[in-house]
Every structure is written in C-alpha cells, then in structure tokens.
C-alpha cells in the first residue's frame, strides 16, 4: 500500500494573460504566472489566496475550459470537472428533465444519466415534485436537485470552487458531510477556498497563490500557517 503515488495531472509554468483594450495602451496583465505542480492520484490539494488572485481561473484551466497562454497542462487521469451546480437548468422543464440535462452536461451519456436518475432523485429528497416544472421549486429544492446531480457526476478529478454544501440548514449539513466524505476517500480533488480552517481539515497539501504567482506549496498546515501569518491584520503601531 505504500507505493509512490502516480501523477494525475501536471502543470508546468502555466500562465494566463488578460488583455484590456479599454485605453490606447494595450494593458495586459498576467492573471496567473509560473504555476507548476503535480497533482497526485488520490490526494486532496487545496488552493488558498485572497479574492481575485486567480484561483478560480486556475481551476478552469485544470478543467480544460480555458487554455493557458503559457506553459502546459497534462491530464493523465481522465475527466477533470468543476463541481458545478444546476448546470443548464431551465425553469420550464421538469425536475426530472433538468436532472437529465444537467447530468449529460456534466459528462454522462444519456444511458448513464437515465440509470443514475433514480438515485439522484432519491438523494435530492424532492419526491413527487420531480415531475413538476423546476420553475415552481423553491430555491432550496433547486439547490438540492442541483447538488444531487453534481454529486453523482463523479469525474476522475473533482475541482471544487468554494462551495461544499448548499440549500437549507438540514440539507447543507447533509451535503457538506457527503462532500467531506467523498473528499477524504481516495478521490483526486482540488479545492479552492479562502477558508483556511476548511482547507486545513481536508487537504494534504496546499498551494498558496498571491497575485497570480505561486507563493508556497507544501504540507497543508505549514502553508496555511504561513498564509495566516502573512494575511493577519498588523497590530496598530
């Protein structure tokens, strides 16, 4: 059981540039620069940093949604997907149809989606309302259904942007617990967050990004301690 872990995804010198052609000067800025790391099979990697440092952009690059302008991403594991809730939901369709559509957007074939549908509906706890138009649902019910679909998608690499649980208090507890269990299993997971405690609890390693640049990568607790020290409000002189 102690063999070295295989690499699931490799990022080498990944950089992404945003151009703003608002002014005469073409002011381009690197949203991400020189990001390199190996994501290992079965590990949970946290990405921490302040708002707007490019964490979500990095997840989109890992999901294959956006191409980096520099460097390369090698995915050796198969499908890498964002944990996306209510993808493609249309209010005029029934909950069942929305679940099918969403599951297919998340990578299932029609047959797989159909096969998983009973489990999804059961998990959502929506019951007979499943054949009502989703437009008539409360936001809590929509959230439950969205979560149930996303939770059943189960890609090879799961990319989570902040949100673990959704819905009313009861379902939130249930969904957070389910996500934590999945993250702790031998799944390959990347979580983006600025909540240090959550990352410390769930991750083995943490990458700290500051203004698009990697600041530290290593043992979760070490990196988080350094991050908290750096971001703690300075005592007034």
């Amino acid at each position, binding site marked *: 059981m102690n063999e070295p872990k295989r690499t699931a995804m490799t990022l080498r010198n990944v950089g*992404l540039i*945003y151009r703003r052609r608002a002014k005469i000067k073409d002011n381009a800025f690197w949203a991400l620069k020189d990001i390199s790391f190996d994501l290992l099979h079965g590990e949970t990697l946290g990405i921490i940093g302040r708002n707007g440092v490019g964490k979500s952009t990095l997840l*989109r690059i890992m*999901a*294959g*949604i*956006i*191409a980096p302008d520099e460097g390369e991403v090698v995915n050796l594991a198969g499908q890498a*997907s*964002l944990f*996306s809730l209510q*993808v*493609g939901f*249309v*209010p*005029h*369709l029934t909950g069942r*149809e929305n679940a*099918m*559509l969403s599951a*297919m*957007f*998340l*990578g299932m*074939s*029609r047959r797989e989606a159909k096969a998983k549908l009973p489990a999804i509906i059961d998990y959502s706890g929506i019951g007979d309302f499943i054949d009502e*138009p989703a437009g008539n649902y409360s936001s809590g019910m929509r959230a439950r259904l969205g979560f149930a679909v996303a939770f059943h998608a189960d890609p090879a690499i799961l990319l989570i942007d902040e949100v673990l649980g959704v819905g009313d208090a009861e379902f939130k507890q249930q969904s957070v617990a389910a996500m934590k269990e999945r993250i702790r299993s031998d799944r390959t997971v990347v979580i983006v967050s600025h909540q240090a405690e959550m990352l410390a609890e769930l991750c083995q390693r943490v990458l700290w990004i500051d203004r698009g640049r990697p600041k530290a990568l290593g043992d979760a607790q070490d990196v988080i301690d350094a991050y908290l020290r750096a971001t703690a409000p300075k005592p007034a002189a």
Partner: protein
Amino acid sequence: MNRYLELILYRAYADLKAEAARGYLGVLWWIIEPLLYLGMFSVYFIYVRQQHDGRLIPFLLIGLVAWKWFASSIPHCARSIASGVSLMQQVYLPKYVFPCVAAATNLAKFLMVFILLLAALPFFGAPPTAAWLTLPLLVAAQFFLILSSAGLLAAVFPFLPDLNYIINNLLMLLFFLSGVLFDLNKMPESFRPYLSLNPLAVLIADYRTVLLDGEMPGWWGLAGVLILSGLLWAAALRIMHRFDRIYPKVLVR
C-alpha cells in the same frame, strides 16, 4: 462524438419544450409570419401589379416558408456560441454543440410548418407526385446550408459583436436576391447565372420545381449547395477548434 450528439438532441428537445411551456406563440409565429407576408405580397402582385396566374399563392407560400426557416435560424445560430458563455464557464463543451442545438430546434419548428404546407398544397392545385420523394434531400441540403453558414458566423461572432447588425441587413438583402418573390427562371437571361450563385435561391427554385411542377430538382445546383455547405462547415469547425478554449476567456468582460 456520440455523447455530444445525444446532448445536442436532448438540449434541442429541452429548448423546444421550454419554449412551448413559456406559452409564447412560439412555433405559431412560423405560421403567422409567412401568412402575413403572403397576404401583403398577394395584394401587391394581384392588385398593384395585376399579375395572377393561379399559381401565385402556392408559389409565394413555398418561398416564404423556406425563407422563414433560413431567416429565423441564421441570427439564432450565429449568436449561439456567444450566448452560451455561462454554460461554457462551468463545463467543457466542444463549441459546435451550440450552433447545432440552435439549428436542430429550428429544423424541428420548420418541419411542423412544412408538413402543414404539404397538406395545404393539394388545395392550391399541387397534388403530391413522385418528385416529392426528393423533398428530404432538399430539406437536408437547406439544413446543412443553414448550419454551415450560421456556424461560421457563430465561430467569429464572439470577436465581432457588431456582426448582429450586419447579419440583419444582409438577411434583408438576401430576401430580395433569393427568389422568394420572383421566379428565377423568368429573370432576364443575363441575370440568371449570378442569381443561381446564391444557394438559397437555388433551393427555393428547387422546392417549387418539385412541389408545383412535379419535376425533379436540379441535381447540379443541389450538388453545388452541398459542396459549398461542406466547405463552410469545414471552415467553421476549424475556427471553433482553434478558439475552443479561448472563447470562455474572450466572452468574459
């Protein structure tokens, strides 16, 4: 590919159902609009131009129904990639999915109206003939023409948002150049070669040849439409592939 084909079909079904459920007149407009045009142009031709040879109404109807399909699909498909931005930020999708969904929903609406047209034609003295068996081919050719030309527009639309205005004006121009209102074969000899370079004009003339005259469509013209569509679609796919993972970045502003 198979998975994306399933996705395209299911999404098209979902869009159609959502549109119907919204309670808008939806597909009814596809019937109302050609009829309104028909009324207008019949008055013009019969009372103003004093032309009426009994075939005028089915002649105009066929042109207007085929035109309506083309004119409704082009802007819808052309916008499809640009308006799919929130979806493509969440999941990776090859970008041809977007124009294909739009083209498929428009095809379904057209088919409903087209069947009504076919049912109505015998009352205008154009009963079904063996030539009608070629209709699936004509419909397929027009579908491919719509998908390929609109697909190319959709591929460049995210970079050129002003294309919207250009498309609307070009459609207006095309309406008069596609033989919706006149018979290509009755145009002056010197004009004809130019008009027949317009694939939509070729198809509309073919629909009439098949439906009204009971004759076979012009095979060379049809082959030309298919070849042109093939080239346009190849170009569209190339551009979509080139910018596959760039669109989600460009479209965020």
